[in-house]
């Protein structure tokens, strides 16, 4: 966990309101694990005041990538930064997905909805290098919401795309597509990141089939490193339910730990 006040933007791509930034930050790259995130300072001016959390999308040598969608002021200002400017970032933060040798030769499924695809690229990099066979479900509202399709394909990762409007791949929710294909794929483990409603369904489905599953949760974060108590969600620990800091003990939790909220604002 370090602060890099000068992470140079060395690459930038965009597809409509999705952006991929490549940042040179050897300190953070050397420590990063899949599912961890960074906190990015958007502006030297106090609006937006707080940093914004972004999953580490990939790492390669000295560089990490972040992949994000414009959803408000912070991401909009961030999207305007250019190659050659630098960002003040903290990371790597939090605890990531379970990975490692035990997944060798296993089939692993990861499900990403919208911008929730972000951490799954790093995860699949890592799992592939452990010898796992990774299948990615990638869902979006429409064809344009699947900008990373080619990137996964280039790496030879098997992709299952869905769009709500049927403009590409399976027509419908990615969770339904996942359900339909599950039997065939028979994964040893499932990872998911995306809208809470999507993750909830993946949790139900994997529970019914008794497949281990991990989820990357989101929350409004004040600090990202455990100091503000702002990011809590209710998590089961040793049979007790506790308000738990997502930034420190998460953002990734196993299905058994998560208590899904009834209604999300």
């Amino acid at each position, binding site marked *: 966990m370090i602060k890099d006040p000068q992470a140079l933007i060395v690459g930038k791509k965009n597809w409509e309101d999705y952006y991929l930034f490549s940042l040179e930050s050897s300190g953070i790259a050397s420590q990063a694990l899949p599912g961890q995130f960074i906190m990015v300072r958007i502006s030297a001016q*106090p609006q937006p*005041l707080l940093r914004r959390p972004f999953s580490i999308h990939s790492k390669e040598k000295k560089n990490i990538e972040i992949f994000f969608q414009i959803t408000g002021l912070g991401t909009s200002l961030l999207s305007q930064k250019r190659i050659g400017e630098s960002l003040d970032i*903290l990371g790597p933060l939090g605890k990531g997905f379970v990975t490692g040798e035990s997944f060798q030769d296993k089939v692993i499924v990861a499900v990403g909805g919208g911008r929730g695809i972000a951490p799954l690229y790093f995860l699949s990099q890592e799992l592939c290098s452990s010898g796992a066979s990774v299948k990615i479900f990638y869902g979006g509202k429409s064809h344009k919401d699947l900008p990373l399709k080619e990137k996964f394909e280039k790496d030879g990762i098997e992709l299952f795309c869905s769009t709500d409007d049927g403009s590409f791949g399976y027509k419908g929710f990615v969770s339904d597509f996942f359900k339909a294909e599950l039997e065939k794929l028979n994964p040893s483990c499932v990872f998911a990141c995306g809208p809470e409603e999507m993750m909830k369904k993946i949790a139900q489905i994997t529970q019914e089939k008794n497949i281990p599953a991990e989820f990357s949760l989101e929350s409004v974060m004040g*600090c990202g490193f455990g100091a*503000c108590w702002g990011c809590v969600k209710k998590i089961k620990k040793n049979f007790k339910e506790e308000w738990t800091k997502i930034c420190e003990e998460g953002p990734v939790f196993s299905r058994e730990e998560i208590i899904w909220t009834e209604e999300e604002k």
Partner: protein
Amino acid sequence: MTDLSVDLGFIKLKNPVLAASGTFGYGLEFSPFIDLNKLGGFVVKGLYFSPRPGNLPPRLVETPGGLINAIGLPGVGVERFSEEILPELRKYNTAIIVNVCGESNEEYASVVERLNKEEGISAYELNISCPNVKKDGLCPALSPKDTFSVVSLVKKSSSRPVITKLSPNVTDIVEIALSAQEAGTDALSLVNTFLAMAVDIETKKPILANTFGGLSGPAIKPLVLRMVYQVVSHVKIPVIGIGGISSGKDALEYLITGAKAVEVGTANFIDPETTVKIIEELKTYCQKKGIDKIETIIGTLKV
């Protein structure tokens, strides 16, 4: 070499820069980023006698230049703090101040009594001003009478200096400050957060689960600076300024106005190095101006 130390009477600080309660965790969260030994000190997260869960999320919302929080004082309770956390903190050579909370005057007293037994605490900061725990932001610091009664009870129980943390949500902060002084507090810290609210026009609901929260951050600095100015001219005890400090310049505004030290809050989230940077900036300012002892600029405002 500039002497940055300040003497609060009951305690001498290396420098006037403290970290504010609730924005600095238990201190240890910042050790990856800064050398805690460099600080004047830090105030740990508010502590009730028993562990507490805090409020329902969402607990945070940003506003222009500010942050509203309704964390609601979750914490490990005084027992676990003493057993697990305090031993870690003792390793640092800096003033450790414990922010003391209570649902009743008696609870404040019991927290202090339990902590009296532990080494390594420099002072207690009485949090009688958190707007996120009771309905409508009620807290003792809104009334001179309530302030007097809790402060005088705690002073009786305490073997250590007591700093009383005031609320800005009052008509006349001088009146409250005088009550706290009369009740024997050793110092005042100004201020806790401003009672605030935010609304989501899409869902038509308050954004915070708690409806109300407390505003902090750069937005509040001009309000707090005014309060510090009003209070320092009426009390004899030291005043610590808290509100919207994120640079050496901000800290200097408070010191010149008359605060003997400052606490840095929300800015710790934005940049965990803020406190240490402020200390550097104070040094630079003093060197540039040929000031040997930072204490000599305290209260030098020319009105």
